[in-house]
């Protein structure tokens, strides 16, 4: 058994809903490290029930041929579980555009929580 992309979609969707209702809180994270071809630009984590969800904006080396490559931007959602003090990665989501929504929602909710504009719009 494995999860279908429809199940993934509804799972990411649920996270999005929880974010917009402010039932989960996102904070900057360094758990997700990427791999040899992927750099993590910015990453947020949130804990819901016993899982930790990490959503990241990433940059991946996209090879045009053997030598030439360009950066191609993307988003990643990985699911971690805390096992004896350290985080263990369970899985990463397939590429669905909803993950980019989740990232921007997480970023926006973090900015709001930290009061990014509070000094400017108070008066």
């Amino acid at each position, binding site marked *: 058994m494995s999860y279908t992309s429809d199940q993934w*979609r509804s799972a990411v*969707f649920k996270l*999005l*809903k929880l*974010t*917009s*209702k*402010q039932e989960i809180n996102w904070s900057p994270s360094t758990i997700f490290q990427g791999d040899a071809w992927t750099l993590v630009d910015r990453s947020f984590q949130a804990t819901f029930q016993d899982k930790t969800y990490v959503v990241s904006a990433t940059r991946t080396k996209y090879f045009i041929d053997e030598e030439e490559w360009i950066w191609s931007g993307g988003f990643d959602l990985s699911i971690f579980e805390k096992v004896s003090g350290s985080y263990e990665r369970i899985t990463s989501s397939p*590429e*669905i*555009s*909803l993950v*980019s*929504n989740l990232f*921007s*929602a997480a970023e*926006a*909710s973090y900015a*709001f929580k930290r009061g990014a504009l509070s000094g400017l719009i108070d008066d």
Partner: protein
Amino acid sequence: MLIITSLNMEIVLRSLVTTLIVFPLVFFLLILLVKPIIIFGSAPFNASMGWSVFGGIAGYVGVVFSLSAALGVSKLSDRYFAKSRLPDLQKKIVAINQNLTNQASSSNMGSLRSSQIVPQVGVALRSLERVKVESLNLISKSVAKNYETLKRKLDGMSSPFSAKLPVNDDPDFWALVNSLSELADEIETHRREEDARV
């Protein structure tokens, strides 16, 4: 109003080609078997008659082939148009979807209506319709349905009470966001398939 979409047009043209090839051929053979006198006449068969029949058939085949070539060209131009248009459209749809979800956390239905983001979905859908990709029809129809539902809700909103409802709790809003994201993924998949094909 009669709208001939590319799908309809293709079916029409394809059946036209079939009709033009199959029916005359059967008809011709039938006459040849039953009453060859109609085709060859009563005079004894000679070379010039043979060439004339051959020329007639060749000309007919030429017409049919050029028709099918015209069909092929229109299909190619549709594909090229889709190839150059879809990346932009996909970016647009993802951006609209992000705007929508950003609205969700902080606003109510009244400010969603005044933000003018929802009508952008309609614009994107209409320009997607002009691209004429069959495999996207099904999902874009479901987006259109969700869009209509939400838009009717926003337009019909008159009492200040319903305008104060948070966007978060609206199932129609989330249905639209969900189907839009599915559409964006579908376009991405279609693009990759097309890239692999060329």
